[in-house]
């Protein structure tokens, strides 16, 4: 095991050296930091040229410059290394990275989680309904999104998700034809997913259509988009729904103790709803994380209290219910802040932003700040999810199909297990193994590849740092970006191999 890791790291270092050398040479040859100065009329041009030449050692051949740069970088090993100085802003590249890395993390984190959740769910459903119209439709749309250029998606998202939506918010009445169209589409999709006999499918489709229409009419008639809120009733009802859904998935509704444990958690959440509203006055991220952990804890306690043979399963289901319910309580509190946010004189009734990470000079509570962050995150996150989730659906679908055809699934069915247990316990878990190796690599790629999204939405993260550095011929800036992303990609590959070995007992790493 240790030998394997050591060997992989050694290979990784060699790859990193080779890659940095190639990139350094390419940038040194292609980019010309003096081009702009040469065409400048500035009286102190000679001084500026001399200064840039000195700063970047332009009088040295690129190969020597590479080794000088590498030597400075390697000095980190004994504690005083450097990424060099950027000629873009005369600051250390390491100082630029300190700002750029967290910005990109903030941007990428949510989109990766969402893309995985959405991609895996859709992938499983399409696998279970292989060759259905839903399967074909999903394939079509995921590939469509996958192949769309990021800059174009971003411009469209801004136009419809921000500009038009904000216009719409001035008078949020949904026209009847939109209600009809959307309800029918949702109903149709539900019917496609449902499976089973034609009668059942039509029934489910009809219910879904009616429910969607009802929700949309309610939203339109009550001005919900301007004054949204779940209230204690909404939160509780949603919680009950979640409890049933999670229990059905996790243990089956036949397991009464699990269901009761989940419902008890919901009851506890409902009872604590108002006290929590007071706690929210002093909200900060640590407080919220604490509340979140507490709600999971309540679930576990409830599971234990209801006892039975499988306390742990009950506890797990109830804990999950608690966590999901607290998300709804959180969302409910954000909704309370929404009217104040939309009406704020800095926002002027146009909440969804197209550029930047924040609304300048917005003053308000923690909740207003969180809302502001979310309204600025929603478009870039959507863009990234649309572009990346296709691959997850395909991986999940393929691996789920393979597992479903495996012998042990036939065995499981033969011994009389119900379909839920077969799918969730036996198939789903094994289907995730190949995915576990894709995700780390994908995260590394998204991290370095959000360049266009960052630029268009004016987030100054890694992508912007790279683009600006490349344009100005700032070789140390480019290399700073590249070392981080390349190292991340190599590390992700090693991690993926280790995860695979950990999850799949057939794989041995010390071979």
């Amino acid at each position, binding site marked *: 095991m240790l030998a394997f890791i050591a060997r992989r790291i050694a290979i990784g270092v060699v790859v990193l050296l080779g890659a940095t050398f190639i990139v350094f040479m390419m940038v040194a040859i292609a980019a010309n930091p003096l081009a702009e100065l040469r065409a400048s009329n500035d009286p102190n041009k000679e001084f500026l040229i001399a200064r840039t030449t000195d700063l970047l050692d332009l009088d040295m051949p690129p190969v020597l410059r590479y080794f000088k740069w590498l030597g400075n970088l390697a000095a980190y090993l004994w504690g005083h290394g450097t990424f060099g100085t950027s000629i873009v*802003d005369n600051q250390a590249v390491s100082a630029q990275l300190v700002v750029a890395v967290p910005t990109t993390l903030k941007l990428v984190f949510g989109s990766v989680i969402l893309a995985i959740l959405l991609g895996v769910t859709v992938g499983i459903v399409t696998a279970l309904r292989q060759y259905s119209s839903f399967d074909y439709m999903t394939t079509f749309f995921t590939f469509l999104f996958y192949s769309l250029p990021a800059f174009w998606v971003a411009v469209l998202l801004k136009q419809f998700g921000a500009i038009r939506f904000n216009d719409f918010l001035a008078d949020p009445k949904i026209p009847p034809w939109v209600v009809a169209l959307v309800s029918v589409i949702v109903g149709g999709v539900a019917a496609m997913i449902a499976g089973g006999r034609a009668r059942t499918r039509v029934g489910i489709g009809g219910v879904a259509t009616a429910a969607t229409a009802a929700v949309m009419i309610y939203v339109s008639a009550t001005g919900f988009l301007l004054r949204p809120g779940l209230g204690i009733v909404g939160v509780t009802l949603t919680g009950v729904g979640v409890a049933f859904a999670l229990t059905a998935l996790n243990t089956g509704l036949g397991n009464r103790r699990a269901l009761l444990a989940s419902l008890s958690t919901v009851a506890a959440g409902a009872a604590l709803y108002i006290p929590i509203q007071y706690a929210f006055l002093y909200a900060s991220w640590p407080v919220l994380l604490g509340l979140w952990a507490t709600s999971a804890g309540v679930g576990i306690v409830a599971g234990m209290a209801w006892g039975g043979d499988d306390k742990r399963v009950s506890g797990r289901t109830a804990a999950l219910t608690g966590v999901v319910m607290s998300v709804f309580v959180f969302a409910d509190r954000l909704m309370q802040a929404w009217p104040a946010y939309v009406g704020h004189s800095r926002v002027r009734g146009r909440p969804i932003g197209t550029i930047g990470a924040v609304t300048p000079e917005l003053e308000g509570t923690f909740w207003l700040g969180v809302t502001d962050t979310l309204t600025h995150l929603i478009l870039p996150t959507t863009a990234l999810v649309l572009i990346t989730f296709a691959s997850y659906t395909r991986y999940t679908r393929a691996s789920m199909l393979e597992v479903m055809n495996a012998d042990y699934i036939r065995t499981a069915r033969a011994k009389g297990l119900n379909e839920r247990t077969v799918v969730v316990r036996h198939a789903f878990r094994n289907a995730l193994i190949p995915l576990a190796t894709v995700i780390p690599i994908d995260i590394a790629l998204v991290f370095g590849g959000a360049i266009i999204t960052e630029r268009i939405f004016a987030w100054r993260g890694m992508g912007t740092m790279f683009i600006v550095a490349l344009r100005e011929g700032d070789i140390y800036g480019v290399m700073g970006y590249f070392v981080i992303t390349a190292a991340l990609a190599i590390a992700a590959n090693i991690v993926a191999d280790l995860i695979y070995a950990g999850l799949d007992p057939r794989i041995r790493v010390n071979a």
Partner: protein
Amino acid sequence: MTLRHKNLVAIGGGIAALALVLSGCGGPTTNDATGDPSTGPSGSTDTLTPIMGGTVTVGWNEPLKSMNYMSANGHATANYVILYMMRSNWAYYDADLNFVRNTEFGEMIVESEDPLTIRQTINPAAKWSDGTPLDGADLLLEWAARSGVFNDADTGDIEKDDDGVVVGVAEGKVYFDAGDPAVALIKDTPTISADGKAVTFVYSKPFPDWQFNFVDYPLPAHVIGKRALGISDPIEAQAAVAKAIQENDKDALAKIAYEWSFGFDLKSMPTGEDVELVVSCGPMVMSDYVEGQYVTLKKNPEYTWGEEAKVDEIIVRYNEDAMGQVQALENGEVDIILQQVTADVLAAVQAIEGMESRSGYEGTYEHVDLTYDNGGPFDPATYGGDAEKAKKVRQAFLKTIPRQKIVDTIIKPTQPDAEPRNSYNLVPGSPTYAATSAANGYAAYADVDIEGAKALLAEAGVTSPQVRFLYGKSNSRRAQEYQLIYESATQAGFEMIDAGSDEWGLKLGGGTYDASLFGWQSTSTAVFEPAANFVTGGQNNYGGFSNARVDELYGELETETDPARQEAINLEVEQILLDDGFGITIFQFPSVLAWNAQRVTNVSMTPIAGTMFWNFWQWQVLG
């Protein structure tokens, strides 16, 4: 129904009942918005009138990175436009490129022509936003920094830290990270009047562009004194800086120079004591700067020595993407944007309801220059030193350059009223442009003259001369221009060789090409500045052009301070250049200014220096 089912129903009912009861009692009353009172979106747009106060939000592409525009690192428009609003100035460029003096703040008086002596005065009421009065020490320090008089450090004396950032200079060595040949002409230490409100500069020789030196108020000497010399009292700190310069105190100057050069670089709002780095003496003060996102400037309530801003707050938001800026304008996130024009951007701006846009110029212009000294078709040496022959070939080539066609095909789609630029040195729209462009001979080059070019080539007895043409290969606009020039010049019998390269910047002056196409950027209307392009051996004279009369004229201009004579000299230079076939200018880069006409009014722009910010004090919010 089994017992279990009954249990479930009971629990569910209980929860529902509890929920109903609890929903009666509310949580805490919340008011999430603080600061400005919240108002809904205003619906009516028919009764908009300019009001006083309010916020204007401006889109800009590149973030502020230094509060010192004159240091090597800080020398960027992105820094200038913010400082422009935070500094008093003695003069500024208006929309018509007039150099307007702000006599309310102070005067620049010629005390003597020989030696050229300039006395600059400061309004005694003027002070920094921290309360310290403006003082001649500020100007003295600026001179010390930019003249390079005190710099005695060479590369080996400059200490860098692990990250290569300059952390210090060898003991007692002075290194101001700046250099300005115009300021270097002032060799003697300027004198400060007894009250500290006037500074007298004596130039070592007459200098025509003196009025462009020391126009914007410089860095605060008292802040540098505090930070570099550790003196807490601002007045004493100011005096200490002045004293160090006057007495050439190398130890103190070394520290001052370091602070001046690198101490004012910043990427976000400084905190604590460091907030003194952003002190202002202009109409606006900085109140916030979030890295890479936005800068907030508030109206300076103390400012009375010049045009006062009508708005209370100006926010500059940063976004590099041109289309992103247009959409931000449409979404109400910014009120004013200034963009390089592309057909997409223009179409997008014009498609938005309620916006106004105006096309204008940037400071950069496109031009073709010919090479005199590389043994090519334009070099007299090729024809055995027959200068007249080479000149005819040059003139023939310039006659084939389809200037009007380039403007029509490339610029007009984005700027319908575009015209070719008809002057080497003057920005279109500047005060003397019309007269000069009418008389400098450009009229003869208004249209392509293939026949004339053929005739000239025949006269010279040269057949199908080969012209290696250098331009930025990946720049699609320049590639298109080359194509048009190629088609036209070929007709006259020139054999065009595509020497386009992405390394064109490095190839300039290397003699590997016979004609080059690229852009120069004007940064001021200073008359002597272009000399470097044309005098023998000049810094920007890449083509090896040498003309005794031009050298003589610039020699005269160097010491000429009478504007009328300056104009006449420039005209003669331009006439010689064109007649000699030095090269030709093509067009000024177009730009587009767009603003939300429902939100702001009094928006305009100028090609250089202040750009759209030049009249920020006139901006008004509509309400």
